[in-house]
């Protein structure tokens, strides 16, 4: 054990992402005495959306308890969504703030907040702070300075980029992921084990990729996975035990089950770590991971559509005031729609849009017929809205390709509506 502790003290670990997974991982790594700890994240600490929801709902009905409001909001939903929402409201933001980021750091970089928390636990370790996004331009240089890499990011392009970089540099990668009530954990690129691409040579469709910040997660779930990432990292650094390589841990919080499964070894055909791979550092630097996965590296707004296919929330307000004939299509998942929605809007979740186009056609037809009766002749317009204005753009792009040539998205979605038009509109 003394040798293990001494190995630990000599080791260096880079944690990429200081959010739900990275926060607990960092605290345990700091506490256990890793010699040098690097933290990279470009984000700032914010009281996340769950918190805003609490405040806004209170405005709606002062005097009622938040629980009652949450209860009445979701009483018509099935039990699963009920649980998810309660989870959403109560835990997600509390966890992240309490575990590493404190309110005092709101508006400051997560890296500064995380580093302060780590130092207060263990003042003897060296901490390197990188307040920047990890890109192909800086990844090789940063990762090369550490023995073990911890992937605590939240999106597919980062995961491919980090894995490829670890292969090029020969570093073991402790990879964790969580969404909703499930988590996954494995160690890649360790002593002949597979890399991320051996397992997932082709990126999944973007509709299968969700961020916790969009789809929700019970904070304890990434918390548990993050702790286990710290554990696997400590095992690797101190060279004790059997690392979780060529195995994957699957955690299902809802049914309280953890299963550890055997996964494939390194693939000889892998385009990055395979026998005939010619993937090199220059190719890595030139590789477009966002293009490869069709997914943005950071959660910034998409910009898919030309200006004429979009309107601002303020313009939409004028449309409502003028009572312009239109159909408002809301493409959020139905449980989001049940939390809050525009009156008279039609909800078809983006994932089901293709299969349910006929409903949209009938809604437009209905408006058109109403119009004929009232003696006017303009076709009804079609506006598309979602929570933040990303899926609405994807939907408009799809709708325009499918013949709905008048479709326009409302820029920034319901969040922009709440920010720019109606501050009393509940956001979540």
């Amino acid at each position, binding site marked *: 054990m003394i040798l293990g502790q001494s190995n630990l003290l000599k080791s260096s670990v880079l944690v990429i992402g200081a959010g*739900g997974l990275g926060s607990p991982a960092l605290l345990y790594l700091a506490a256990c005495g890793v010699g040098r700890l690097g933290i990279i994240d470009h984000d700032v600490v914010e009281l996340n959306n769950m918190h805003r929801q609490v405040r806004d709902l209170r405005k709606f009905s002062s005097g009622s308890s938040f629980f009652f409001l949450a209860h009445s909001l979701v009483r018509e939903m099935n039990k699963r969504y009920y649980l998810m929402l309660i989870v959403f409201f109560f835990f997600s933001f509390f966890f992240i703030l309490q575990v590493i980021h404190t309110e005092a750091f709101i508006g400051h970089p997560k890296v500064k907040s995380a580093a302060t928390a780590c130092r207060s636990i263990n003042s003897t370790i060296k901490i390197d702070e990188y307040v920047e996004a990890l890109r192909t331009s800086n990844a090789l240089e940063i990762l090369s300075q550490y023995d073990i890499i911890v992937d605590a990011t939240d999106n597919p392009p980062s995961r491919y980029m980090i894995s490829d970089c670890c292969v090029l540099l020969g570093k073991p990668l402790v990879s964790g992921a*969580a*969404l909703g009530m*499930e988590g996954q954990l494995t160690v890649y690129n360790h002593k002949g084990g597979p890399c991320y691409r051996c397992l997932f040579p082709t990126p999944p469709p973007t509709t299968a990729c969700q961020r916790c910040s969009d789809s929700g997660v019970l904070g304890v779930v990434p918390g548990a996975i993050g702790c286990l990432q710290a554990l696997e990292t400590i095992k690797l650094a101190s060279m004790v035990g059997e690392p979780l390589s060529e195995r994957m841990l699957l955690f299902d919080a809802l049914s309280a089950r953890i*299963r550890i499964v*055997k*996964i494939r070894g390194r693939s000889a055909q892998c385009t990055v770590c395979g026998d005939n791979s010619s993937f090199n550092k220059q190719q890595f630097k030139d590789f477009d991971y966002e293009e490869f996965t069709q997914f943005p590296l950071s959660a910034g707004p998409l910009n898919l559509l030309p200006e004429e296919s979009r309107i601002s929330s303020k313009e939409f307000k004028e449309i409502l005031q003028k009572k312009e004939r239109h159909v408002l299509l809301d493409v959020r998942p139905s449980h989001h729609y049940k939390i809050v929605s525009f009156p008279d809007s039609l909800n078809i979740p983006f994932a*089901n849009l293709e299969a349910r186009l006929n409903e949209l056609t009938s809604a437009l037809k209905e408006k058109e017929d109403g119009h004929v009766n009232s003696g006017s002749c303009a076709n009804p317009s079609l506006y598309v809205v979602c929570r933040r204005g990303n899926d609405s753009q994807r939907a408009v792009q799809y709708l325009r390709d499918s013949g709905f040539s008048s479709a326009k998205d409302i820029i920034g979605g319901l969040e922009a509506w709440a920010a720019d038009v109606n501050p009393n509109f509940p956001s979540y």
Partner: protein
Amino acid sequence: MQLTLEFGGGLELLCDSEKIHKVNVDLPNGVEELTMKDLLSWVRTNVIKERPEMFIKGDTVRPGVLVLVNDCDWELSGQLETTIEDKDVIVFISTLHGG
């Protein structure tokens, strides 16, 4: 034959949000053993209720789905050619990216 099918990582949303399905699969006529290839098309027809493209692509599972036969990656047992036996547990799990 009796099989247990499990869906996770969001794939359960394609089959009425039920994660565990105890099913009885009959062998197609004239076939002596059931392969994963047969099972996939059976699952596609009998279990998947919506958005089949989120489960199947071509004749196999879509990218990003891990298939485990008795807690073991199907890549290790022959992928589509893996033979399935009575009481086997087959897990379909979509990889997660969140954090």
